[in-house]
């Protein structure tokens, strides 16, 4: 076998899966080499020196040697553990959505500096923000822009007339904003003026500034709908991690209704005992 020089690279760990009894396969995302699958040996043993340094949603410096079919991680040193992304389940969920998006849309051995910088900046903002969902939506729009799906926000995607802020629609299939006339003719979903303005603001502002914009629940829900439809259009699939986001949003309701149904069955038992 020809000897290949080991590689040193900075990377963000996107995900892991177990391999055999003690190892894991890590999916790394490197600015110069794109997506790399590499084996982290022995990291499922309790005294592994490497295990804490290959956790998903962290940034590190890695040494990689070419193995028979996959790379093998020879050393790993965390540069940024992004602890808040692990300690808070809501931030974690949004971070996983970003990681999944990158994981699905990048190829091995393709340099991907701009996407790497976007992911890194977004995860950094996510680690410090009070509005995790807003940061993830910002990332989604910027991701679409960067990957060539750039939603049109200036001219109607059907008749090319320039649009104002009022009375528009949004069509993910056609790739952006629809003017009031075309929207009246049945094209696109309703795009309210605050959400239209916010989309344009997100395109020219940082994640931090976007996260500071006050958005009511109705507008965030609308924005979420438009962006996720554009994303589905681009990926031709739904993100797996989005169903966990839904589970999480329902969690407290599930807890409360579990208490209620227990109380009801107790009352039912008492009723039966009384008869």
């Amino acid at each position, binding site marked *: 076998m020809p000897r290949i020089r080991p590689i040193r690279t900075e990377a963000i760990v996107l995900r892991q899966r177990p391999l055999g009894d003690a190892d894991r396969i890590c999916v790394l995302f490197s600015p110069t080499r794109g997506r790399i699958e590499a084996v982290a040996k022995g990291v499922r043993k309790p005294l592994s020196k490497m295990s804490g340094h290959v956790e998903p949603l962290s940034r590190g410096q890695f040494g990689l040697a070419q193995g028979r079919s996959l790379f093998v991680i020879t050393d790993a040193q965390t540069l940024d553990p992004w602890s808040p992304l692990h300690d808070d*389940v809501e931030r974690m*969920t949004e971070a996983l959505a970003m990681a999944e998006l990158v994981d699905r849309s990048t190829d091995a051995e393709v340099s991907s500096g701009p996407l790497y910088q976007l992911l890194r900046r977004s995860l950094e903002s996510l680690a410090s923000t009070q509005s995790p969902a807003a940061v993830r939506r910002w990332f989604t729009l910027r991701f679409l822009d960067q990957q060539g799906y750039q939603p049109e926000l200036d001219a109607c995607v059907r008749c090319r007339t320039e649009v104002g802020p009022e009375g528009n629609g949004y069509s993910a299939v056609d790739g952006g904003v629809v003017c009031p006339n075309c929207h009246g003719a049945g094209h696109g979903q309703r795009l309210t003026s605050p959400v239209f303005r916010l989309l344009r603001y997100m395109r020219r502002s940082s994640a931090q500034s976007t996260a500071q914009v006050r958005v009511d629940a109705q507008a965030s829900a609308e924005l979420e709908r438009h962006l996720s439809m554009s994303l589905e259009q681009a990926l031709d699939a739904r993100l797996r991690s989005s169903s966990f986001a839904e*589970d999480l949003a329902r969690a407290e309701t*599930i807890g409360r209704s579990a208490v209620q149904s227990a109380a009801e069955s107790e009352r039912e038992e008492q009723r039966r005992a009384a008869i």
Partner: protein
Amino acid sequence: MQRSPATAPTIARLIEAFHRLPGIGPKSAQRLAYHVLRAPRAEAEALSEALLEVKDSTRLCAVCQNITDADPCAVCLDPQRSDSTICVVEEPLDVAAIERAGVHRGRYHVLHGAISPMDGVGPEDLKVRELLSRLGDATVEEVILAMNPNLEGEATAGYLSRVIGAMGVRITRIAHGLPVGADVEYADERTLRAAMTHRVEVDREEGSD
């Protein structure tokens, strides 16, 4: 898997069956298959009987979801154990490990996995509903989350805290930090931070808590 045309189909089938087991590579599978081939018939019979018996006579305990041959299982029936705490774990082997250490005298609940959002594994794929149904009345005062300290464990613990928190039951999570025998030098930042956060007084007498 490589298979030479000289391998008889029946042996190839056995090799493939071994290969499907976790942690068994193609070489080990071959070695196991030829071991069975050369072993006395009684040994092969004992193996096949043990395999079938484990499938036929074990099931999940209706209460704690652990693997058992009597339902409810011995732990759930043990009158010496406290009903007021439930320790929630990912896998049956975790119950075995905690029992070996003898550090928990309450009950258990086995989830049979952990939430893995990127693999599409959610709460409905685990024994979460069964856990919630055990928390309805006031018997259980504390739920101890003993998930693995990794991303899936954190997602699972985060989700369960939300649901169980809304039920008004006290939730704790086992501490994590440096394992016994580890070097501080090699510890990652998050482990060190956890170890610092959960540090304890050293001037207390041993075993006096």
